[in-house]
């Protein structure tokens, strides 16, 4: 028994324990805190399971954006009242069905990475071999963004009257996040990284920019929806290229697949970032009298 085994055992034990705390504790604040810890522990565990891409996405999205959304929701400390129950079973069944159908495709994917245009197998699966899944996923995110915007009671407005400290914070953080996002995107072709992780980081930059009153960082209205949807549109256009040149739907020619994947990933990054930022801002939007409260807890 070496040190890694002990670390893994402790990590798994902690994941189960924190998961139990997160779902069983009565207080919303405690549950949210436990869930944030759960996200961090999961990211560590994914890294231990040789899944650095997933670990990055978990840290940025599962623990980051989702955690920020929950922390923001905490502000409303209403005593919970009973509501009608609605079961989200179809979603879970869909995830399980996806798991079952992916049983023996791994070796096939790894053997054909050379034809995909990228050398990182996960990017090859996401944007070439199983790009239909990714296309539909982006569509889900865009629909969620439009839905959240429609449900939210107030329209999201750019922040005004920001104090100099927040402006200074934004001027430091946003360039770093933009650089990081671009690097993660470009790295995705050859190593862990890609559109989702880059999109999550860019979404964080947009949310910070919105909260710090930076111009043009508040995605809203038709412009925001159009930017969010542009990823789906580009993906569909890319998908039609195959049939137009005598191939099949979403087929990429190895000759130009690498460039096409990087281009569509760049557009997807923007689309995902705008959609996630729209969801976050819709979930956390406040009207003018409560604007100061909106700044709390939305920093992934």
């Amino acid at each position, binding site marked *: 028994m070496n040190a890694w085994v002990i670390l893994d055992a402790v990590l798994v034990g902690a994941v189960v324990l924190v998961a139990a705390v997160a779902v069983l504790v009565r207080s919303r604040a405690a549950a*949210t805190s436990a869930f944030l810890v759960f996200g961090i522990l999961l990211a560590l565990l994914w890294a231990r399971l040789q899944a650095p*891409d997933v670990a990055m996405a978990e840290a940025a999205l599962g623990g980051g954006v989702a955690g920020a959304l929950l922390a923001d929701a905490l502000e*409303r400390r209403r005593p919970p009242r009973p509501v009608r129950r609605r*079961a989200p079973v179809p979603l*879970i069944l869909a*995830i399980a069905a996806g798991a079952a159908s992916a049983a023996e*495709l791994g070796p096939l994917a790894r053997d054909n990475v050379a034809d995909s245009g990228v050398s990182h197998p996960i990017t090859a699966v996401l944007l070439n071999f199983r790009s239909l899944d990714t296309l539909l996923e982006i569509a889900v995110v865009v629909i969620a963004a439009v839905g959240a915007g429609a449900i939210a009671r107030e329209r999201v407005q750019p922040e005004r009257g920001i104090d100099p400290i927040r402006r200074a914070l934004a001027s430091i953080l946003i360039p770093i996040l933009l650089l990081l996002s671009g690097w993660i995107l470009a790295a995705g072709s050859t190593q862990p990284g890609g559109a989702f992780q880059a999109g999550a980081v860019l979404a964080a930059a947009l949310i910070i920019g919105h909260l710090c009153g930076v111009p043009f960082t508040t995605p809203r209205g038709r412009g925001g929806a159009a930017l969010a949807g542009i990823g789906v549109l580009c993906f569909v256009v890319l998908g039609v290229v195959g049939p137009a040149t005598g191939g099949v739907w979403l087929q990429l020619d190895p000759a130009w697949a690498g460039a096409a994947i990087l281009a569509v990933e760049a557009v997807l990054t923007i689309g995902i970032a705008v959609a996630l930022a729209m*969801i976050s801002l819709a979930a956390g939007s406040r009207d003018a009298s409560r604007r100061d409260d909106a700044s709390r807890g939305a920093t992934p």
Partner: protein
Amino acid sequence: MTATTLLLAAGAIVFVLGVVVTLTVTDLIRRVIALNVASGGVMLILLRLADRGADPDPVPQALVLTGIVVMAAVTGLALTLARRVEGDGDDLEPDEDAAGGAP
């Protein structure tokens, strides 16, 4: 092999915990958290299964990556819905139709 079993069991426990609480709790925020925890259990099982050989299987990893993004979107939409259902916290009366009801 025991490590695999341990991780699969942990994933199953986390998933069942999350699903049971999702279906039984009435607090909407806690329900969203429980759904996220349940998805964490699914991801744990998928990623453990992906990490069997010398090279990890990219297909389940890509599925999990997709799942994380979808869960983040679902969480945001669910919280927006929860917020609309519960009101903004200023009004003590739960307002069901909530048409333009900024306080």
